[in-house]
């Protein structure tokens, strides 16, 4: 087959270089039919589509060439640079959003399954000694101290008005709470003692998912990938140097289906903008603390419970928490995975796990996220049975 193709190409004489034509002419007489195609090493250069033609095969070859440069990149920074250097219009996804039913949309964007409740506890290993009893009283006292300090004991310059209460009181309270609890719990978890604590550091993630037909412009009618970017600023985050163990195995199949949205993301509402594509976990790639432990988010005044109740959106209160968790934790775990060199064509070989606590100052919700797959592009997602999983609790006071 190969030989016959070679002959036809040589006779046509266009597109092939002289070198390949001569080689084909030389090699052709030695080939004796289709059984030689089973030879392990072909002694002629590979027959591939053109690079510059205006055809689907040529485009595919260009895409594969670009993907080969990413695979061949020597450092993670270079890989991220190649993946993010071309800027196109992309949807800007806000984790803290007032959009209705945003959590179902975000589940479809990030291929995440939402399970209520916390993940199953890890099986108790018989060789490790039992952990010391948790001093709940001390932890409760510390939490009460932080709360009382900000709300009552601390005398500030001016009496804080209601609309500033959020940033002037709740924000420092959350800072103090995270710091004191981390300190108290580091006895049980030595990784926490050496952890890095970030305060309002940005987290960025850029990914492609799904396809659309371009509706207007000079590329009208062509198929284009949908690009998304999350620019998040968690209130606090804890980063550790060793990865958290997985909750469930990598290929764990969840019977729950991911919601499929039948309209364009613009309906959410989600808007497109073109600006720098960044992937950032809170520090640059050189930091040894490159794995995430927990993120803490503070919901803004705009999304507080009283306002939603006034707008007759009582069922959206949970949605706000869930959407924030799914988007933020997906962005963080995805960025952690990309810092390790994985991307959509080189899918993760181990699950990336992070936790999140989302609060509005009074109600707390706890979430756990396991990233099983980064292959969300249309090409990579064709035969990908893996789904990302997010566990979450109801809000607790």
């Amino acid at each position: 087959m190969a030989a016959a193709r070679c002959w036809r190409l040589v006779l046509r004489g266009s597109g092939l270089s002289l070198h390949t034509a001569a080689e084909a002419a030389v090699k052709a007489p030695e080939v004796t039919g289709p059984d030689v195609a089973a030879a392990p090493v072909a002694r002629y250069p590979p027959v591939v589509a053109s690079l510059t033609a205006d055809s689907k095969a040529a485009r595919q070859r260009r895409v594969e060439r670009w993907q080969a440069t990413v695979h061949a990149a020597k450092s993670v920074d270079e890989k991220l640079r190649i993946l993010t250097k071309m800027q196109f219009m992309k949807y800007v996804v806000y984790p803290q959003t007032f959009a209705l039913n945003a959590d179902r949309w975000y589940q479809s964007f990030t291929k995440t399954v939402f399970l209520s409740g916390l993940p199953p506890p890890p099986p108790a290993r018989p060789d490790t000694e039992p952990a010391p009893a948790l001093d709940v009283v001390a932890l409760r006292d510390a939490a009460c101290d932080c709360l009382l300090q900000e709300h009552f004991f601390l005398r500030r310059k001016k009496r804080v008005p209601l609309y500033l209460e959020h940033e002037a009181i709740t924000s420092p309270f959350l800072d103090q709470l995270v710091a004191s609890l981390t300190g108290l719990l580091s006895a049980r978890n030595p990784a926490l003692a050496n952890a890095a604590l970030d305060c309002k550091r940005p987290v960025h993630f850029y990914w492609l998912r799904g396809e659309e037909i371009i509706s207007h412009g000079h590329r009208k009618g062509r198929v284009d990938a949908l690009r998304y970017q999350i620019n998040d600023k968690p209130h606090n985050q804890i980063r550790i140097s060793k990865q958290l163990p997985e909750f469930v195995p990598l290929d764990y199949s969840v019977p729950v289906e991911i919601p499929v949205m039948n309209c364009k993301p613009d309906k959410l509402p989600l808007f497109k903008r073109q600006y720098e594509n960044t992937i950032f976990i809170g520090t640059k790639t050189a930091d040894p603390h490159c794995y995430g432990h927990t993120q803490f988010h503070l919901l803004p005044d705009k999304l507080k419970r009283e306002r939603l109740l006034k707008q007759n959106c009582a069922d959206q209160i949970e949605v706000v928490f869930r959407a924030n968790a799914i988007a933020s934790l997906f962005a963080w775990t995805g960025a952690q995975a990309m810092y390790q060199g994985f991307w959509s064509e080189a899918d993760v070989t181990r699950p990336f796990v992070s936790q999140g606590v989302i609060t509005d100052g009074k109600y707390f919700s706890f979430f756990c996220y396991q990233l099983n797959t980064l292959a969300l592009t249309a090409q990579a997602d064709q035969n990908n049975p893996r789904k990302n999983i997010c566990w979450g609790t109801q809000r607790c006071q």
Partner: protein
Amino acid sequence: MALASRSARLALARLGRLGLGSCGAPRRGAYEWGVRSTRKPEPPPPDRVYEIPGLEPITYAGKMHFMPGLARPVFPPWDPDWTPPKFRRLPPLHEHPLYKDQACYVFHQRCRLLEGVKQALWLTKTKLIEGLPEKVLSLADDPRNHIENQDECVLNVIFHARLWHSTEDIPKRETYCPVIVDSLIQLCKSQILKHPSLARRICAQNNMLSTTWNRESTLIQVHGSSGAQLNAKDPLPPIASQEEVEATKNHVLETFYPISPTVGLQECNVYDVNDDTGFREGYPYPYPHTLYLLESANLRPHRFQPDQLRAKMILFAFGNALAQARLLYGNDTKVLEQPVVVQSVGTDGRVFQFLVLQLNTTDLASDEGVKNLVWIDSDQLLYEHFWCLPVVRRKAVVEPVGPTGFQPETFRKFLALYLHGAV
């Protein structure tokens, strides 16, 4: 005013009264009383029936609409009992409830003292000792107190603060200064496994401190917030022994005539003399442990000079100590049997100043007697310079990315100040 001199304006007003001024433009005087188009129309004159005394005019006020034949009602001028905050004028200073005749010189967090440390020492009746006290230095040198891979961790912290924590190539001081102090405190906190009493502390910000004292018939006040403050449940033990405290009686405070000791302080007549630590009573962490003062402005003229920063540290540490002493031992001026100790760390992200202040006496009016003690370790560099981008000369890397002139001693002192009182 359009014209500077009154005579010229009068001359033109005379000209303009004839009608329009020169060149057909509106009179110059018109602008003095408001542009004519925005002037409100005059109210119509009240009905003649109001000029008849003893007569009650029948008006259409009750009918809520105009009725020809009835008199126009004249209402009393409306007195709004509430002005929006935007339009409220402050009462003149003399009428303020807290106005006092004696002027008070207030030190707040942006005060730069002209004579720096000397002035701060005179204001607080303190004796300066260069270098940190032996007790604290021994904590620094004790290898049991060291964190494992301490130098490596500190280098990571410097890298993180100066380079890694932001997506920019070269982060600015306003972001990296608080990040480096927070990370160093977090690193010190990791010793909580060895010293569980480190959990009996909490960090607080934006507390308003206010203390007043008399210093040779001038009233001095420290007022304001000093940034982040570490409070503890247990007080710091006194450092200098009784003999050293008695020995300070012979010390003479340095004066700097002809400069007045209150130069640089804000003079004000409206002040409140009550002491305020910044926390209400019943606060579970009543003892101030360390104050962290950051100079994180991007531009050098906006930052304090090291001398001015040390003076600010002395005064705020003294203010905290004095407020604490008055809370514990009452308002009378006396020599304290249990001296109050407060520490302070001031930095601009690279250069650190360490301070330990021991308050021995609240009798500050006279120049004689026991003085307070302060130990200062000034200008401790954590690193000389940090290259965010490698320096390349003729295609060879001359300086790699990272800090140059790293001094691990500075972090050991920082750690010692943190562990002091808990070890």
